[in-house]
Each structure stands twice: as C-alpha cells, then as structure tokens.
C-alpha cells in the first residue's frame, strides 16, 4: 500500500514541477534603474523574442506572479517598496536580478542615495549581468532559473521578519 502512496506523491510533485516550469508569470519592479534594463525586459514580449512561446507572461499584480524581475540599484525610496512587492507575491516565488547595477550597484556604486545590490534586500535566485543585458540574455537568465528548478524547487529562503521590522 505504502509504495502506491509514494508513487502518487511522486506523480503529483512531477506534474507540479512540470506546470511551474512551463507557465511562468513574471512581474517587473524597477528599483531606480536608468530604464535601459526595463526596455530590454519589455522587448522580450515583442515579436522578435516573444517569451510567450515559453509560457512567460508579464502580469500587472504581484499577486498573480511567480517571478520578480528586479532592475536597478535599490535607491533608498525604492527599498521599502521592493520589500513590500516581494512580500505580496504568493509562494513559491523566485527573484531574477537584471542588470549590473542590480547585482553590485554598477556605475552608481557609492552614490549617496543608492543602497547597492538587490540581494541585500531580498533573496535572489538568478543574476543577469550586462548594462543592459540583451533580451536574449534575459531569456537565457530565465532558462537558467528553469534548469535550476528542474532539480526540484529550491527551498525558498523564508524572509523571517515582515516589512515593518525589516525597515525599522
């Protein structure tokens, strides 16, 4: 009896991973970027690159999204809003940090209103360097996330504290 139950568990988890790999809904947050990366992210929807063939759709609300595409060095005003957007997304959620200045502050390293990189604020799964990365490089980043997920979904590093504590 036991192994049929285990069998069913495997089937369900396989179907679940399959559906997560083939239907990715992304939401885009610009935390102070120069909008170079944002237009390349938007360009991936257009006919020449068309990410809808992978099942990737850009959604408006973080509620409907699985992947958060963050671009830009987190400025101080955008920091709390980035945390709040990340908190609004339902589990399982992943973060892709697009562009050199979201990984390490890039050219704006050391500016007084810039907090530096995104992974100081929220846990990041895939980093895409480039200023801005080509639309194909953004697609390559998403594919890296998919292959990374192929081996079962990574345990999401739960954010212990909620927004108010983190900000205070």
């Amino acid at each position, binding site marked *: 009896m036991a192994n049929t139950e285990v069998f069913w568990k495997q089937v369900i988890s396989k*179907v*679940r991973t*399959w*559906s*997560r790999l*083939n*239907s990715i*809904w992304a939401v885009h947050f610009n935390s102070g970027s120069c909008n170079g990366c944002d237009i390349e992210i938007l360009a991936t929807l*257009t*006919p020449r690159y*068309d990410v*809808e*063939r992978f*099942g990737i759709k850009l*959604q*408006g*609300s973080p*509620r*409907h999204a*699985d992947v958060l595409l963050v671009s830009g060095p987190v400025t101080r005003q955008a920091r709390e809003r980035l945390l709040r957007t990340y908190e*609004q997304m*339902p*589990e*399982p959620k992943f973060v892709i940090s697009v562009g050199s200045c979201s990984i390490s502050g890039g050219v704006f390293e050391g500016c007084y209103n810039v907090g530096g990189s995104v992974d100081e604020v929220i846990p990041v799964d895939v980093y895409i360097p480039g200023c801005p990365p080509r639309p194909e490089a953004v697609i390559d980043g998403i594919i890296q996330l998919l292959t990374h997920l192929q081996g079962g979904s990574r345990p999401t590093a739960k954010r212990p504290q909620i927004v108010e504590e983190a900000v205070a």
Partner: protein
Amino acid sequence: MTTLSALFTILIFPAGLMLILIGMLYEWIDRKLVARLQNRIGPRWFQPFADIVKLFAKEQIRPGIANLLLFFGLPVMALSGALTAALYVPLMGFAPAHSFPGDLIVTIYLLSLLTMCIGLAGWNTASRFSLVGATRALTQMFAYEAPFLLALLGPALAAASWQVSEINTYAASHWMILTQPVGFIIALIGLMGKLELPPFDSPEAETEIVAGALTEYSGRGLAIFNLGKSVELIVGLTLIASFYLGGVAGILPFLIKTIVLLLVMAVLQSVLTRLRIDQTVGIWWRFGAILVLAQILVMIIWKGWLS
C-alpha cells in the same frame, strides 16, 4: 435517460470534465490566433492547462478584510454557473443534456451569473483596483446584457420556440445569418463584451487598474475564475453557432463553425483599441440596442404577414 447516462453526460462527456478541457483548448486557440495576428509565435497547445495546474499549486493569499465565505465561495459559484449553462446548449454537436421550453433564458442568466460573481468578488476584496474593476464590470454588464439577449431572441422568434434544441433543429434548415445579419453581428460583439475581450476589456484594463476585480485573487481562486471564463467562451460560441450558422449537427460542423467564429473574434480583438467604460456603455445603448430592436421589429412584421 437513465440516471447513470445522465450523470455521465453531466459530469464527464459533453458537459463536465470534457467541457473544461475543450474550454482550455479554445482559450489556447484564441491566444495563439491573437499572437499569430501580432506576428509572434504564441503559446504551446498545453499552455492554459499548465497555467491552471500551476495556479492550483500556488499559495492562495487571502486579504484580511475580505469575507471568508464570499472569498472562497464566489469562484466556485462562477464556475458552476458557467457549467450548468452548458447543460442546455448542444455541445460538440450532441443533443443538449437537458432541455425544456424556455431554457434559452436560463442559459443566458447563468452565463451572466459569472460576471456578477466577478463583480461581487471585486467588491469583497476591497482593494482600490478591484473596487474600480468591479464597478466597471457591473456597469458594462448592464450595457451589453439586453442587446445580447435580444440578438438571441431573433432566431427564437423565427423558430417560434424558446427551447435551444428546437431552435437548433430549426436553424439546420435556414441559415439565419443571411436572414438576420444585424442580429448575428450584435450577438458576436455582445459575446466579446461578455467575455471582456478587447475592445471591451476596461473592467480588467491592465494598464489602468492592474487586473480589475481579480487583482487580489491568486492560486486556486484565480484558476477557477479563469476556468469559468474559458467555459463561458465555449458556451457562448456554441450558442451563436447553433443559432446563426445553421445549427450544430455533428462534431465536425461544431468544430468548424466555432473555430471560424473564434478567428473572427481574434481579428476583432487585435484590431480594435480598448474603449473607456463610458464609451462602451454609450455605444451599446446608442447603437447596439436600437439596431437589435429594429431587427426584432423586422422579424415581427415579417412573421406577422407571412404566417
């Protein structure tokens, strides 16, 4: 109709599970056609299926101030409304699972039950976007509901019966799209309004009010609402195909006619800009209602003299 075969038709073959799968397939055809018209490749055939399964596997966040019963009950009510509407409609060319005189009115009421549920869900989750989305969904419903019903009454008058299956058999011999072209156009555009496809998608205008009434839904609730929408797409298409395009005799004519209708709707979707809510209501009441009333008048006069 033994209860077993009735249960089978309701739960499995033409109405229940099969309808949901075909509904998802039709939603894929719609997205693929719109993508192809926009010169892109578009999603793969199992895309809506993957979306729904993924949404079921996601966490459902419940807003604090939303009333629990309504929050979980409304999606189920919406889907069941759409599914029961499918019982009276000749799906896949088979005879409808159940039909009685006057079931046309019940079908149309059940179809608009879904929009009411979306409106209520938007009000219940009380986020500012869903409030605006809910008011827009309900305002738009008042706009297209009457002309859509009247457009379907045209063929009912011609077939002198309010039973869908009878109108279907009557339509097999006379192609009513030729005799009542205005009614056909109003019915098709009314269906686009009901499904909130562009140019009537201001209740869920992504760039104004994020996702309209469903902004706060995620996971299962969103999946069930999307299922309800795709089932409604199928039911609406079958209704118009069986009334205006010469009845739906078997599977093949059903498929051809509904997919041709879907193609026309996809072209309309990709060629027209979204209308503001006041413009939609204006167009429906100024042009929609008057044209369809004229059509009905013509029908009455024609029926009065001839028979």
